[in-house]
């Protein structure tokens, strides 16, 4: 039998540990940061937030095992596509409804709604630019 290149025997458990550490850092940092802000320690909360974010990148870039395999990337691709489709549908309907409400009624659409819609538009612009960049390389 031909043996493929064999990683260490505890590769899978190390991978799982590092993934828990990576995602735990960022989610823990955000959660603890929010709690500290709520408890009126905003600067400390911000510091904890950054520690969590930096720990995420440190584990991601410095760990000696591959934390994501091809199925993980495929899951991300599918999830990204679904999210973009949902956001796109929300944008198309909400933008039109907001304009119509403004034109046809006295209702004033709140500024945060327009902010969210422009944020969605920015997301699609970023997607388009990223797509064009990748198209030049593939």
């Amino acid at each position, binding site marked *: 039998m031909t043996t493929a*290149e064999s990683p260490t025997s505890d590769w899978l458990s190390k991978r799982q540990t590092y993934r828990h550490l990576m995602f735990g850092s960022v989610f823990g940092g955000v959660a603890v940061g929010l709690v500290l802000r709520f408890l009126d320690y905003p600067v400390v909360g911000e510091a904890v937030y950054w520690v969590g974010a930096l720990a995420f990148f440190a584990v991601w870039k410095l760990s000696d095992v591959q934390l994501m395999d091809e*199925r993980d990337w495929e899951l991300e691709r599918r999830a990204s596509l679904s999210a973009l489709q949902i956001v796109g549908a929300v944008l198309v309907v909400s933008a039109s409804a907001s304009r119509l409400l403004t034109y046809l009624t006295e209702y004033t659409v709140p500024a945060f709604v327009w902010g969210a819609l422009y944020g969605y538009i920015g997301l699609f612009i970023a997607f388009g630019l990223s797509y064009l960049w990748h198209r030049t390389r593939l």
Partner: protein
Amino acid sequence: MKNELDVYRSRDGLSQGELAEAVGVSRQTINAIERERYDPSLELAFKLAAQFDCTVEALFDPALDDSA
């Protein structure tokens, strides 16, 4: 895609985790391939074939896939 991965894995007495370690992916990835919910990349297909000392065609049969 239809495949014989579980047959070859059982033949060699490997668990999904052991096979996953041998080819450098997660156990969930091997499970998804065996359940025909995920089609592996060419690179992984060749690694699996090398692991079992067979051809890719012996492991994977796209002709049997209804959606092909």
